């Protein structure tokens, strides 16, 4: 290929989706220029360990990187880190960067991810109120997690609970405030919520359900001293973590006039409304042939799968995105692996007991398995992946009978 035939693909964002796209293009021997523009100073890295073993101080920062920076550069891929993309000029096919330079693109991939949802309430700008989204956030929180410190976590979802598990290990006094009547309500069923509630209570976490937060109480020198509740009470705090979800980062796309709807809207080939612009990962509201409706997913698996789809699209292969989503979480000695989305189930089948060290919940709709949550039971997750992907119709008896071989169902 001569230089004149070489095109430039620019990836906006330096998260997991961007990193997976770089890797896939490398594996597929993509012949064009690839430039990644990332706002953080780090090459693409694993975010899941941030709330888990990285926060607990069990792994080094460098081990988070999907691969060392030198590997990309050795392969001819460029990383422009520590710069932000300010604007997309679709007419001229250029992007303007925060260092005032411009970059020309032939194809642009938006992998802008998400940003944390901020709690707007009286006192929300006090010192000591943390959010957790990137390495810098985690480093800042980690140094505060010393024995005896009172940490109050607002939000009982994955991040809040993973942080609770990591912090209590370090001797921190942890309180979790959840507005709903059960933990992880948005992502799992009541059995799993009850199981994790019991786990956290047993570990010494003060978990309070049905507890809405109204604001923060000030202490000395502009520091937070407590979290105020809707019932009039206050929970004393030395530090606070607010973990109430994320919002897709669509500002650049919206300013460029690309269709957005709580996420950059893309088709099953990751194409936006502009044929030369793709979008992947947390920032997208996407079509996945596996579902009947458009989805937005906050997960590594989605980031990686969309990255692979985008790589194929960039190379003219057109492989539609059609895989079932999957997720995982580690808290204490619990390995939770999930596949599918359980929201629309009409039946739940428990295999084993939530009193056991290992069990699984199967979520069915009209007799077909649409999701599985497996606790310390990887085989149920692996079988579930097959059942969910192929919409297998399975009898509840076969799923619940611990004597029946799960593998025989596939």
């Amino acid at each position, binding site marked *: 290929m001569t230089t004149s035939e070489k095109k430039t693909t620019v990836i906006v964002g330096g998260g997991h989706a961007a990193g997976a796209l770089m890797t896939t293009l490398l594996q597929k021997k993509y012949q064009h220029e690839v430039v990644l523009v990332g706002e953080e100073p780090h090459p693409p890295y*694993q975010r*899941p360990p941030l709330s888990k073993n990285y926060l607990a101080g069990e792994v080094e920062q460098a081990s988070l990187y999907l691969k060392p920076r030198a*590997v990309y550069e050795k392969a001819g891929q460029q990383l422009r880190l520590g710069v932000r993309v300010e604007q997309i000029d679709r007419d001229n096919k250029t992007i303007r960067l925060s260092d005032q330079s411009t970059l020309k693109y032939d194809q642009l991939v938006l992998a802008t991810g998400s940003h944390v949802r901020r709690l707007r309430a009286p006192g929300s700008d006090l010192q000591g109120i943390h959010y957790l989204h990137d390495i810098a956030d985690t480093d800042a929180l980690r140094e505060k997690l010393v024995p005896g410190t009172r940490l109050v976590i607002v939000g009982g979802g994955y991040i809040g609970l993973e942080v609770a598990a990591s912090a209590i290990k370090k001797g921190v006094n942890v309180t979790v405030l959840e507005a709903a009547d059960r933990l992880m309500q948005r992502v799992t069923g009541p059995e799993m919520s009850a199981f994790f509630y019991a786990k956290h209570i047993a570990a010494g976490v003060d978990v309070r359900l049905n507890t809405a937060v109204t604001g923060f109480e000030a202490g000395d020198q502009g520091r937070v001293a407590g979290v105020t509740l809707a019932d009039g009470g206050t929970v004393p705090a030395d530090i606070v973590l607010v973990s109430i979800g994320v919002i897709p980062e669509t500002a650049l796309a919206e300013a460029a006039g690309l269709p957005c709807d709580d996420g950059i809207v893309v088709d099953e080939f990751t194409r936006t409304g502009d044929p030369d612009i793709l979008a992947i990962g947390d920032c997208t509201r996407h079509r996945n042939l596996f579902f009947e409706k458009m989805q937005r997913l906050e997960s*590594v698996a989605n980031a*990686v799968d969309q990255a692979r789809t985008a790589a194929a699209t960039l190379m003219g292969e057109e492989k539609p995105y059609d895989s079932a989503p999957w997720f*995982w979480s580690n808290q204490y000695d619990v390995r939770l692996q999930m596949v599918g989305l359980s929201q629309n189930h009409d039946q739940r089948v428990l295999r084993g007991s939530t009193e056991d060290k290992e069990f699984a919940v199967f979520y069915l709709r009209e007799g077909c398995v649409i999701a599985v949550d497996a606790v310390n039971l990887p*085989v149920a997750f*692996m079988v579930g992946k097959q059942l969910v992907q192929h919409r297998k119709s399975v009898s509840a008896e076969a799923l619940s009978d611990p004597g029946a071989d799960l593998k025989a169902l596939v």
Partner: protein
Amino acid sequence: MGKITFIEHDNTEHVTEFEAGTTLMQIAVDNAVPGIDGDCGGECACGTCHMIVADEWFGKTGSIGDAEEQMLSMTPERAQTSRLGCQVKTTAAMDGLTVHLPEFQM
């Protein structure tokens, strides 16, 4: 520093250099070896780093954990010497090791 060879399903060979302590999954990913996904980053959560270790080297790769065994048990191309690459931490004794990659990951 030593060498590990990854052989793709179509027999393409990738000879890589490694530092002891790195996992087989990470070595494959760092060297852009196609066929090893390692989506979860090495948490034994996804089952996408299945490798088949050459028979004579299998004994040097340590023992298979319970979670790894369950994940492998559902892998269609499971062989006697299958491992999940993220669960094999390399040692100096693995210099010269050869692993084969399956056609598909889960």
